[in-house]
């Protein structure tokens, strides 16, 4: 009998960290080998399934940072440490981390878009010798929506950080969209670099255009896509754009490919 790719397995919730009012990070027991940028199909029996990115990983666990928006995510928010959650995966490709090593890296993330790059950021935070420099621009709507506060304050110590809120002025944060701060990145001083952009589609679109305006070559830009997904394994068809399945060849795309993914 062949393996059933739709069959999830139960995993214990080790810890739940409240990031904001409707975004919690769930630390879940698993030995799955996960690459930075991948996602799991997370489910509860009788409720449903949803794709969720891995926001951090360690020995015997992964973290998923989930926003409460609907049927499945509402129900997940009722779970307690010790409860079981069901998962299958990890799925999708990942950020080309080996390619990033030894070079300069710029990460531009908006809102929940910080989740899929958080594990990558944590990796270079813990292995600073493996990266030449890291510039992080992270933007949130307002003070209430700031995610990963502890990580953000740690990152200040080893990365060049620009944190920004759309409108409000608070200490340690600039004002304005992430796109408005891209011109502050010293692209000219980099010898060899990459740019990672993750966030809502509109934000990724304008951030990429702004990077191009600042002289960043297309091939250096990496984006992480989000699409409706019902299977995560190339069968249900929901995530398809042209001949590309976001769940299989993505969610991470180089800009040279992404610009041809027209809906």
């Amino acid at each position: 009998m062949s393996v059933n790719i739709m069959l999830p397995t139960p995993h214990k919730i080790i810890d739940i960290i409240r990031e904001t009012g409707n975004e919690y990070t769930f630390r879940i027991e698993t030995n799955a080998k996960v690459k930075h940028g991948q996602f799991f199909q997370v489910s509860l029996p009788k409720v449903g399934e949803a794709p969720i990115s891995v926001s951090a990983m360690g020995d015997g666990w992964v973290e998923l940072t989930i926003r409460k928006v609907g049927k499945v995510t509402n129900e997940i928010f009722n779970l307690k440490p010790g409860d079981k959650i069901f998962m299958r995966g990890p799925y999708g490709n990942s950020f080309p981390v080996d390619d990033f090593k030894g070079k300069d890296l710029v990460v531009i993330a908006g809102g929940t878009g910080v989740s899929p790059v958080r594990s990558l950021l944590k990796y270079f935070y813990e292995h600073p010798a493996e990266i030449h420099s890291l510039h992080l621009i992270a933007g949130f709507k307002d003070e209430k929506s700031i995610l990963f506060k502890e990580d953000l304050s740690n990152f200040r110590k080893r990365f060049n950080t620009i944190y920004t809120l759309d409108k409000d002025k608070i200490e340690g944060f600039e004002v304005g969209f992430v796109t408005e701060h891209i011109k502050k990145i010293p692209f000219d001083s980099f010898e060899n670099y990459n740019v990672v952009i993750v966030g809502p589609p509109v934000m990724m679109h304008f951030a990429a255009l702004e990077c191009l305006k600042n002289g960043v070559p297309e091939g250096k830009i990496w984006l992480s896509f989000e699409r409706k997904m019902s299977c995560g394994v190339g069968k249900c068809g929901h995530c398809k754009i042209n001949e590309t399945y976001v769940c299989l060849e993505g969610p991470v795309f180089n800009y040279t490919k992404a610009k041809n993914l027209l809906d």
Partner: protein
Amino acid sequence: MGYCVSIKRMNEILKELQKEYKIYAPVRFEKRGRYSDTDLIRYAEINSIEDVVYDEKSDFSPKEVIYPITQALFYFTEYEYMESKIDDKKILIFARPCDINGFRRLDTIFLKNGGTEDIYYKRLREKVKFILMECKEGGWDSCFCVSMGSNKTDDYSLAVRFEDDNILVEIKDDEFTNLFGDEREVEFTPEFVTSNPTKVNIPEIDSYELLKKIYDLDMWKSYNSRCISCGACTAVCITCSCFTTLDVTYTENGKVGERRRVHASCMHEDFTIMAGGLSFRKTAGERMRFRTLHKIYDYKLRFKDEHMCVGCGRCDERCPELISFAATINRLYDEVKKLKKAETTKDIK
């Protein structure tokens, strides 16, 4: 090897086969058609050879036999996933050449795409053997199998031609030879349609620059008012394979339930909708473009061998707005020709 079998004898053979097989064929459902007073022809289990509607095209494709509209994946009890079960019997399907070729497209998605196999499809698919049904000469009005190269196949165990009192049978699969041992031998191999009244020209799309221009064509906008996004076209298509999974509970207390998948349509407005209400391809025209290009451009770009559409013409027959897919393809062909011509004259200048 060919045999001439009487209707009576054929029914005896079917009875014999039914010990091991579930036998499916296009069957008539009276007064259930697209218009009042018309019949609906769709695949169902048969008990006698007279049930088989062989002289008309079925409204629905045989894909439902192994890829049902709704299918249970798991049953849930308190905290357990149990894989759904299927009948042990093997499956025989009376099918046309286009549909047999269509199953190969479904195989590509369910058994090859992404390098994984979908066991729900596989466990039924591996039970299937085909009984090829000859088509009438030229096929039916909306067929364009010849243009799509799917008018022929040799992937069948038996082939049949229905005559007034007899059925001619070709046997390609030794498993069935015994059943026909006492019948009268005749020369018979099935004939395939070699020309249809409806023909399509497939545009050659050879660059992303051209593709982008195709996206911007005005022709798609004309579907915004005509197409009602009902998804009837994808429901009847032998090669449409998309689905959505959902969980349901059977009881008030919600203790037991199932995860099932149901056919989904890229023509429906909510096909791409994500949490937060964000969606792509918001207009009927954009969705028509997506479906058209999948059927005659990007499936082949991905899997190389063949286009997804097999030209069965069912989508044309079924559309309540009388939108013809063949006409859409031909219209796109003309538009692409114009785009290419504009490009070459620009180059010359």
